């Protein structure tokens, strides 16, 4: 038996291939006869397409040109409401909407030709803000510009507010954020009537693309094949949009009869593909003289852009997380996703939760102040504990100890001592001010509500006669460590070494549908299936009598050989079953929203420069309970990366909109922090095993995105006395926040 692999920082499975340049990304592949595809996009936010003009100086016969008329199946991206076309035909609904595709063997010629196509558009009135969408001066989607509404109701909020001694109101806004994966989007396709459609590319969710292409081409799903190439980061940005690029690339391949590749440049990727939903949240909170929450009335709105895409599920997660890890008898959350004339916003690490948690945690500091309590004491009095019920009616059954996380975070950050010292030093004046702030929060792992039940995820583990183990799943490695943790989980379940496990490349020809690689579900949900299937193999070998209870690698190999010789293939498949007692009512929107939650308290320490209004994060402490940690290095990396991305969202990354178009779609003017801008991020785990996760693990990927921004804003408020509410807090915004308090 091998020593346990779980809990050890074993090396990243594909790390050697990546650092030696052997890993193949889609743009590394160039089959013979390849054409390069480009997209001609709408220059206008909204309007009627009157005509398309091809400049006469170009010999267009050399090019493959695809319009909506060339689509063999349904011109709608299959997702939730299927409202987004692959190619606009009559109307355009946002800037950069794809209208036409061009391919040529010479990439530069294709690029040049793109600029020699003019789309004539008769403009229609457009909508660019949440307020204008709500005001319905122009209806751009459905009957009322609203993609989805949710209403969570617990107790009697109105009565509690009316009776309250202290009511605190606040309004908070968050901006869009670009995922900025290192590798831009790209796809390669070979497609014809005889062989069907095959695409290779950068993606998170092979089966999303698989389903989408079958509908686009109107051919049976078994004639579609989707293969994930090495993928340089996703963060949600390669969740739904790659279906469109795969569709475009395949349409060009289908029409030309040649392999076609489409690689987005950085500007195109930033301007055209999805970003984090901008949001506005209003809070009205009642609290009693003892600092106990009496009522929370929360209005949470996200801007979905021009098409519905994933907005309903982003909204759902944001709505459920909007009241945080607190116990409150009366809670109402109204969630709305509205339409504007911008490219659709989409999946991004956290998926709506960072937006509503930012508002809540900034607001909690203000409520604490109104109740005459420190931020930490106020939270301590209101933390939810096991046996209590969340706003959606979910009773927390797992052990949860937020006060212990809080104590640990306060101690590690020297919070109390620093808060006192900074107040003293700030009073003396000088060119800068220091502050410290915290945020406490939770993040549900896996799909929301009944999502996992509907997905019915499936994985297979197979073992060869030589004892080589392969894990077959559609879950993608996008830099976060899927290959490595699946190997660790399978290795421990089989009692062998990680090196003897291979995780198959996601290729829909080979791997079953284990669901999308999203929602912090890969480790906890799919990893559990890997564990179950691998255990099944082990039991089969033991039950067959070929393997004793105690064994080494050679025994294992010998047992596999004897089993395969006797019975044939050795495979085990595992399918998702909801943990017992977990129920969700889609209609009433009540029940167990998530199988479990990760819990966390983050503390940020900042310096604000009073000359330049720059905010610098000096120290960051991240304490979280995520169940069993499978791979400490990878888990720490997830937290550090999420906090860094949260710091970018909080302070630097400002998407500037001009009539629905991103005006700063370049890395020179969309400012993301560098390592020089980041503090040391100190990461600590509490490990409380979760019975339904592999070896007790929960989800981890999204959690760290939630806590950085509110902790930083609370620290800036502590440093300056200002009440910043609008994210990102660029120097310009802090300057105006300071002007409003007369500083």
């Amino acid at each position, binding site marked *: 038996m091998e020593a346990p692999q779980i809990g050890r920082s074993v090396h990243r499975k594909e790390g050697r291939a990546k650092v030696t340049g052997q890993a193949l990304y889609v743009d590394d592949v160039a089959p013979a006869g390849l054409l390069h595809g480009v997209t001609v996009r709408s220059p206008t936010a909204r309007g009627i397409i009157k005509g398309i003009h091809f400049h006469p100086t170009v010999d267009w016969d050399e090019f493959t040109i695809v319009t909506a008329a060339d689509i063999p199946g349904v011109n709608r991206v299959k997702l939730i409401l299927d409202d987004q076309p692959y190619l606009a035909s009559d109307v355009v609904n946002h800037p950069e909407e794809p209208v036409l595709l061009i391919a040529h063997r010479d990439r530069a010629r294709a690029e040049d030709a793109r*600029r020699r196509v003019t789309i004539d558009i008769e403009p229609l009135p457009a909508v660019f803000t949440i307020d204008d969408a709500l005001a319905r001066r122009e209806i751009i989607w459905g009957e009322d510009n609203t993609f989805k509404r949710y209403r969570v109701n617990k107790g009697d909020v109105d009565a509690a507010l009316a009776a309250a001694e202290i009511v605190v109101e606040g309004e908070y806004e968050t901006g869009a954020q670009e995922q900025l994966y290192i590798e831009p989007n790209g796809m390669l396709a070979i497609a014809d009537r005889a062989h069907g459609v095959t695409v290779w590319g950068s993606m998170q969710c092979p089966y999303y693309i698989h389903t989408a292409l079958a509908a686009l081409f109107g051919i049976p799903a078994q004639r579609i094949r989707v293969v994930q190439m090495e993928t340089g980061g996703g963060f949600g940005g390669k969740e739904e949009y790659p279906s469109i690029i795969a569709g475009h690339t395949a349409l060009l391949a289908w029409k030309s009869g040649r392999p076609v590749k489409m690689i987005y440049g950085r*500007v195109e990727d930033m301007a055209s593909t999805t970003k984090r939903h901008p949001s506005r949240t209003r809070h009205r909170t009642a609290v009693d003289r003892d600092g106990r929450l009496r009522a929370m009335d929360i209005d949470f709105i996200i801007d979905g852009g021009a098409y519905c895409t994933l907005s309903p599920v982003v909204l759902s997660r944001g709505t459920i997380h909007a009241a945080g890890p607190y116990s409150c008898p009366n809670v109402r959350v109204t969630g709305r996703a509205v339409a504007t004339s911008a490219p659709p916003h989409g999946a991004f690490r956290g998926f709506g939760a960072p937006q509503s948690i930012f508002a809540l945690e900034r607001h909690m500091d203000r409520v604490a102040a109104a109740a005459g309590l420190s931020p930490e004491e106020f939270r301590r009095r209101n933390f939810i504990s096991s046996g209590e019920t969340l706003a959606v009616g979910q009773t927390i059954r797992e052990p949860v100890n937020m006060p212990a996380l809080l104590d640990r975070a306060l101690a590690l950050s020297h919070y109390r001592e620093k808060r006192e010292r900074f107040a003293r030093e700030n009073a003396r004046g000088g060119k800068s001010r220091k502050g410290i702030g915290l945020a406490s929060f939770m993040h549900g792992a896996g799909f929301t509500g009944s999502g996992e039940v509907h997905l019915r995820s499936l994985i297979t583990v197979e073992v060869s006669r030589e004892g080589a183990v392969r894990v077959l799943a559609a879950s993608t490695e996008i830099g976060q460590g899927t290959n490595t943790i699946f190997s660790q989980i399978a290795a421990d379940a089989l009692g062998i070494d990680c090196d003897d496990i291979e995780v198959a490349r996601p290729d829909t020809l080979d791997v079953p549908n284990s669901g999308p690689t999203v929602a912090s579900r890969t480790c906890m949900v799919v990893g559990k299936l890997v564990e179950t299937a691998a255990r099944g193999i082990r039991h089969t070998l033991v039950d067959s009598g070929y393997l004793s209870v105690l064994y080494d690698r050679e025994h294992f190999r010998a047992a596999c050989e004897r089993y395969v010789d006797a019975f044939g293939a050795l495979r085990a498949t595992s399918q998702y079953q909801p943990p017992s007692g977990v129920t969700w009512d889609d209609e009433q929107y009540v029940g167990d929203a998530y199988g479990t939650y990760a819990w966390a308290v983050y503390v940020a320490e900042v310096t604000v420069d009073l*000359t*330049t209004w*720059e905010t*610098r994060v000096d120290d960051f402490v991240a304490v979280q309970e995520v169940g069993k940690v499978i791979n400490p290095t990878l888990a720490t990396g997830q937290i550090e990366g999420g906090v860094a991305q949260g710091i970018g969202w909080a302070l*630097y990354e400002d998407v*500037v909109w*001009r009539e629905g178009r991103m*005006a*700063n779609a*370049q890395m*020179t*003017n969309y*400012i*993301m*922090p*560098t*390592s*020089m*801008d980041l503090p040391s991020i100190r990461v600590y785990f509490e490990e409380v095993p979760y019975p339904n996760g592999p070896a007790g693990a929960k989800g981890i990927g999204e959690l760290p995105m939630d806590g950085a921004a509110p902790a930083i804003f609370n620290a800036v408020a502590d440093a300056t006395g200002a009440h910043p509410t609008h994210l990102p807090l660029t*120097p*310009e915004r802090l*300057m105006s926040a300071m002007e409003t308090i007369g500083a």
Partner: protein
Amino acid sequence: MQPFSYEKVTNEHEAIERARLGNATFVAGGTTLVDLMKLNVEVPAALVDINALPLNQIEDQSDGSIRIGALVRNGDLAQDSRIQSRYRVLSQAILAGASAQLRNMATTGGNLMQRTRCYYFRDPVYPCNKRQPGAGCAAMDGYNRIHAVLGVSDKCIATHPSDMAVALVALDASVHIRGANGERAVPITEFHLLPGDTPHRETVVRPGELITYVTLPSGPFGAHSAYVKLRDRASYEFALASAAVALQVEGTTVRSARVALGGVATKPWRALQAEQVLTGSTANTAAFRNAADAALTGAVSRRYNAYKIELAKRAIVRALTDALMD
């Protein structure tokens, strides 16, 4: 990127003769040029590599000045002990720019010739008078948060991106240029041109001319100089506003002063009015603020860059304060 020829030259004469043939561009560190070629903003038919020219020394001259070869790498210049002790502001300015790797490649001459970071200039999709005279300017009504408020024209509001050149302005540097007809020395303040109606003309260097040296006079500013750069993040970022200042102080009185600005003007900017305000004044925050106000007199902002006027003033005040405290 378009196809181009490449050749190496080994002496100045050869370089100048080759460049006179037309449509050739000198390449030294390549840190700006190669990027712009990849973006199809620069499309030279020929690259003439001058890295083998013997212009990579920093030499003390008999008159007390110092002569810097055009091929001295930015990193070497910033780390030179004479520069660090006598021209500290120059060392600070260089180290505030780019990254260590870029500074190890970028040269003194190339830094002076570097082109604007205006996003519209760098993306051929947009009209740009600098790239294509008469095409129009996308920055005027575009996202012009990084653009200039001083030295602007109705044809161009692109900033000059250099940190090094701002310090050279504060140090009264001269640029030596050699052509077929010999060598001339140009004061740094006259080296870069205002955009006016011809924003595509950025310097006084004519086709076939080569920058050979930059000289720094021995000045009275060794004791009190400073560079302050304000930017959107701590590294790998161009200035939103920067100030290079040098002071000659007797007791508490400013005898003479140099104030130069970066990130806010269409060329490395000397703020003469600020220097006049400072000269003879008592060195204190009030005088520094008056000087800063004077420096930004006449600034013209557009939709997104009005904040730069106040930011530049604060950079000046902080730089003067830092310089005084040395």
